[in-house]
């Protein structure tokens, strides 16, 4: 039987994705120094100017410097998405692990809650919140967070249970290992990889969802330079000043692309690991 050759670009995919994300984060973190203008100051140059030496990404309808807005907006978008993701990951993992470790009753109830929350699309919840409480970035994130912890919980629970069912774990328990030791030596190593992978997958979706909702006008509000909001503002000028759409559009695309590459790379790495284990 022909052995499936390991596809080498996959390792490179992980590396490339991580590198791209690191670059994006670094650039955005250096916003106050890289951005030469105040992102909300108007008429720092002629309006609707395309990319030029004075303004690397041009100016918008208010004469604000697009590059500075992009950098600061990126801070908002990435910091908020990142923070939210970490929170969701943490909460989801803990809940899922607890549910998986506890007895039958808790497990059944917990599964029911998790399945219910997973089946509801987060964007829909965010939309519902916005529909009744008015548009704002906080509302969108809050609404989405209400159900977006669930995929992590579901995975964590499944992993915990399957880890505990492994022969090595059963043996360890038979030899008298305590819960904490089991967690550290049997569960955690099997939890890490897949949770990280799911985190990467969901991160990309989160950034795209926030951008989409802001594009509809339901997320960040003026004069916030958030990327989705910039897309919404620039949409009208697609024919006359396309740089207003391309800049934030490319930023969103690159971010999601980086996260997608990371998740693909991680996935392959995990596949390979599990293949090795299986053999």
């Amino acid at each position: 039987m022909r052995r499936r050759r390991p596809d080498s670009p996959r390792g490179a995919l992980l590396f490339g994705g991580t590198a791209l994300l690191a670059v994006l984060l670094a650039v955005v973190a250096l916003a106050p120094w890289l951005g030469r203008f105040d992102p909300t100051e108007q008429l720092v140059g002629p309006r609707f100017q395309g990319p030029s030496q004075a303004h690397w990404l041009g100016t918008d309808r208010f004469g604000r410097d697009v590059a500075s807005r992009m950098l600061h907006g990126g801070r908002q978008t990435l910091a908020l998405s990142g923070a939210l993701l970490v929170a969701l990951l943490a909460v989801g993992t803990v809940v899922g692990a607890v549910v998986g470790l506890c007895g039958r009753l808790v497990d059944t109830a917990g599964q029911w809650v998790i399945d219910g929350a997973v089946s509801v699309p987060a964007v829909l919840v965010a939309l519902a919140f916005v529909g009744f409480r008015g548009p704002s970035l906080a509302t969108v994130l809050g609404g989405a967070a209400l159900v977006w912890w669930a995929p992590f919980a579901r995975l964590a629970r499944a992993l915990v249970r399957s880890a505990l069912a492994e022969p090595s774990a059963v043996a360890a328990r038979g030899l008298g290992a305590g819960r904490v030791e089991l967690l550290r030596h049997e569960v955690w190593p099997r939890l890490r990889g897949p949770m990280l992978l799911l985190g990467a997958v969901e991160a990309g979706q989160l950034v795209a969802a926030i951008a989409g909702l802001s594009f509809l006008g339901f997320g960040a509000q003026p004069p916030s330079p958030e990327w989705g909001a910039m897309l919404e503002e620039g949409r009208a000028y697609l024919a006359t000043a396309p740089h207003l759409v391309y800049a934030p559009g490319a930023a969103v695309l690159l971010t999601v692309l980086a996260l997608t590459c990371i998740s693909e790379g991680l996935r392959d790495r995990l596949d390979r690991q599990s293949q090795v284990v299986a053999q």
Partner: protein
Amino acid sequence: MRRSVGRLVGGALAVALLVTGCGGSGSDGPRAAGSTTAPQASASTVNRESELTIVTFRVAGTLDPVGTLSASYLRSHGAGEALMKIAADGSVQPELAKALEQTSPTTWTLSLRPNVRFWSGAPVDAAAVKASLERTRVLDSFGASFIKDVDIAVIDPLTIRLTTSEPGYTLGQSLAFYQLLIHNAASYGPALNGNDVKIADLTGPLRPVSFTAKTEMVLERNPGYWGQPSPIRRLTVREVADPQARAQVALAGQASIVQDVPADRAKEIRNAKGPLELVAFPAANTNAIYLNPASTKSPALADVRVRQALGWGTDRAQLVEIATEGLSKPMPSWLASNPSFPEAAAQGFTSFDAAKSGRLLDEAGWRLGSAGVRQKDGQDLTVRLMTWGTEKAMGEVIQAQWKRIGVKVDLSHGEHTVISEARKVNDWDAFTEAWTTLGDTPSLLANKVGRTGSGNYAEIDDQRVEDLLAKARSSADAAERKKAMLDLNALISDVAPLVPTYPRLQLTAVAKNVQGFVPHPLQYENIFQIAMGLSA
């Protein structure tokens, strides 16, 4: 099969860039303000079997004029008529009625045209007109407010006597209001009933033959119309709520008329030189920033000098340039958008005067601090400005402009209900709103600054205002009434409960082969005109 990272990621990026398209055309500098005259097609020959398509931001919600968000659209698209109407120069003219005569400060005689019929053939006589107005009174509180305390008496089949409880001179303007469309009360019945084209019974030159609320209405020529027949045989009205999509329709020429084209696409549409041309006309509708003198979080607003300083510190020309692409015009006082009061353009904040603004603020004790924000007793001068609807851009420009005079603006854009809620608990500093100035002007004014007005957000309680309102309403001399309104306008600029900015922009795209489109200060109800049609 080794592929380098670079090539793979580079390939992805290349595809991404290809998909996102190559660079677009360069942009022109800002164009001069739009034309205010209708496009001139060959004036003589009009196709008497014209078929037009209108794309609008909202199709009538129901075919029943007492419903909300219905009557103005029915009128606008040629289906409904009221007893009177307001012409483009601001004067009030008979529409369905033949004449309206005031016989005493409280009595009016309305003469009807003979042989006018509803679509069903029922006669539009005095009894029918009274039934229509009474039905509105019962079912529509908004419309009812325009015939509040007006007694309607049938004298003979073509004459009605109207008696008001107080002396007044604006009944004609009230009767011109769109919520008072004359409709066949017997056909519609005692409750809101507007979804069936067979039940709908109005008087207009076009009548709907198919209707899907919020989507489409198709109208055809009414053969029994009392006046000159319309050249339009068939009119299709379609709703496209998204302003960007409407702009796309205008660009692609996929309609004869597109209403409410967003100003931010104006340049693109002009550059494209397509089959539709833009007609920009300022509305008789004042956009203003309302201030709260009783604000708890921004006590500075209690001082009239601070409020005046905000008015002088607003660069309206720049605001118009940025927020409306130069298509509207600066407006120094709220009455200035009403075409019947050209003198109002010389009242109020007639120029941008940052120096005066600074002086007023200094006098009021608010001095420039180190961070560029004015301070008094250690407190910053901050104003929370709430915008909603189409005024997002206005808010952002105002924030930048007031920053230059040392006022820090906390901007938030949301829904009108957020603003209503904030007002209920007196937790607001400033918000934007636009309001009509043409119609029963003394009543509109009373609503805004009168003691009991529901639109009196700053809770002004000033006897001078009440006296001028009384004069504007009931003084027998027309010149004195006009002067009272102008004096009131000047007084309001002094008291400064609001900062007027510019009249609402009405931007319509009209196909070059459409004749008879008339720019109008109340364009939203005046799209269709009786002479309108396609060039032959």
